[in-house]
């Protein structure tokens, strides 16, 4: 029973990571650095609450969340693909922009500086199922299949083959008639949708939007991508690993065995170690960050 509770909580914590990391893998596989994940998630969280509150349904919230994610992805695409601006700078600026914009419009939409009123989410509280209730949430299922589905998309479809070619050697793909920019744009839009759903899950799970509520989860997703070496199934494992560490920390909180800050560090330290190549080097797609 303890084990089951542990597993369920791990999955709950992992869902936003899984969704955002799926988006990030897509983005990086077509050659665009996924530094904007945090912003896309936050935009998704805000959109979800806005839609749920004013539309009266979590489903409308999801539509709004995806729209917000697409909007952010379009801005990113405009700057990096059309104007060829530096992807690192644009990614960081997008995060700052979304943090600022969500706070700015928080007051306009809900007349509060820090959080929205309560929204319903996907319900299930009253059913007495406890933590199992979260499995009535479609986003949980979506999160669980996101990376396997992405694996299928990247490794089993013509689109995926072209995407991987574009992220690795765009000039080779171009000589074979593949439209590199259009493909990158599609990859970015898919990234925006997935990452925003990750944010939507967070907000609907907590039944409200709070200021900067993604709290670095976009970067943990990025860490999972690098630690998982850009391979969807490995990335999924990394997300679950990071989530399990968090769950363990929460459940052992009373015991004070390890300071909670050290558990927070796990994803970041593992990523740095992976990049340094201590145990098998993590090598990104060759054309990552280079848009000509």
């Amino acid at each position: 029973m303890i084990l089951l509770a542990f597993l369920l909580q791990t999955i709950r914590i992992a869902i936003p990571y899984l969704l955002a990391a799926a988006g990030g893998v897509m983005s990086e596989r077509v050659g665009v650095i996924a530094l904007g994940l945090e912003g896309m998630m936050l935009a998704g969280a805000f959109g979800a609450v806005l839609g749920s509150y004013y539309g009266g349904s979590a489903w409308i919230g999801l539509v709004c969340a995806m729209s917000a994610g697409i909007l952010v992805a379009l801005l990113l695409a405009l700057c990096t693909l059309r104007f060829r601006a530096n992807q690192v700078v644009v990614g960081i600026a997008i995060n700052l922009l979304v943090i600022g914009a969500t706070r700015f419009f928080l007051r306009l939409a809900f007349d509060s500086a820090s959080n929205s009123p309560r929204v319903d989410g996907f319900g299930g509280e009253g059913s007495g199922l406890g933590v199992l209730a979260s499995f009535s949430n479609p986003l949980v299922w979506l999160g669980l299949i996101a990376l396997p589905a992405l694996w299928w998309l990247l490794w089993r479809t013509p689109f995926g083959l072209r995407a991987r070619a574009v992220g690795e050697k765009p000039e080779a793909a171009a000589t074979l008639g593949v439209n590199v920019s259009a493909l990158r744009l599609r990859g970015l839009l898919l990234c925006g949708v997935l990452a925003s759903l990750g944010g939507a899950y967070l907000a609907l799970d907590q039944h409200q939007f709070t200021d900067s509520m993604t709290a670095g989860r976009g970067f943990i997703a990025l860490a999972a991508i690098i630690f998982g070496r850009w391979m969807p199934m490995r990335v999924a494992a990394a997300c679950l690993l990071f989530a399990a560490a968090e769950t363990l920390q929460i459940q052992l909180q009373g015991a004070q065995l390890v300071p909670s800050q050290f558990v927070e560090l796990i994803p970041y330290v593992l990523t740095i170690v992976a990049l340094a190549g201590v145990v098998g080097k993590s090598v990104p797609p060759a054309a990552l960050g280079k848009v000509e």
Partner: protein
Amino acid sequence: MSGDGLLMRAAQAFLAPLLAVALAMVVGDLLILTYGESPATVYALLLEGTWGNWYGFGQVIYKTMTLTCTGLAFAYAARAGLFNVGAEGQLAAGGFAAALVGLLLPASIPGVIAVPVCIAASMIAGGASGAIPGVLRARFGASEVIVTIMLNFVLLALLNYVVASHMAVPETLHTAEMNAGFVARLGSLFPVFAGSAANLTIVVAVLVAVFAWWKLFRTRSGYELRAVGLQPDAAEYGGIPVSRVWFRAMVWSGAFAGLGGINFVLGYKHYYEEGFAAGSGFLGIAVALVGRNHPLGILIAALLFATLSQGGLAVNALVPKQLVDILQAVVILAVATTVPEVQRLLRKTAASLVRRDAAEATP
């Protein structure tokens, strides 16, 4: 000839940032209108709250100090072709080291010794934080972007742990007050600034900007660093050890960011507090971009961004202060997108001008 060249360089330096600020203003107008306020009123209030009174101006000076340091940090690495997005963590490490040294020093030590020691501590801590991504890049080719981002979280979490569990004054998130290493507030010298956080560390920031300028543009190591950033192949041909230059650039970059920590610690509160300058590290990227990675430009840009930050508080009654966060982000995006375009354009024009002149000069 030289006149044209100077004009060109001036255009190159200012055109893109000015365009960016103009675009941000337009976006700002639209945002203000969503709250039903008049942009003119809001902007007037923003100026009044910053440059319109001594207190506001003092706060602007205070914020300029840290932004100058983080701006220099980003620019110095960028000149070597590297992206240090780890100023956030390096800044915290610098502030913590200064506070720690100030705590350890006995109160009897005179300021002329204590202050430089604390300053050195902040730079060493920042530099050590920069050395990690530096060595990983130089030795293993690990992306300094990802390493610095990840290291931000690592450093902040470690510092939070150390402070929270071993050093914090009960019921707070800050350490005990230092024994030595105080830097005077401007208010104690010029009473008009009374109440504002502005302090003499701004002088250190200006001096460091001058030092960075000298190092980049007047020394052999700066010459080599810029060559590596512009054209690594040509640098290699010129006998410059590219990896070693990368490592040193990251160390200096981290040291500049670390130095920013003394503003709060030595000049204002005299202790380290969790999140004392959150956001200043990332904002340094904006400062460096707008300042075109030039120390003088960075000083001006730091003043601009400090004005915006402080101005946000002044207008908060009419529109949320996050208006300025959005404006700052828009400025970054606009500069990042327009600089390459403007440069391409100017390069073409400059080349054709020079060719024409050369043709005329040839009999």
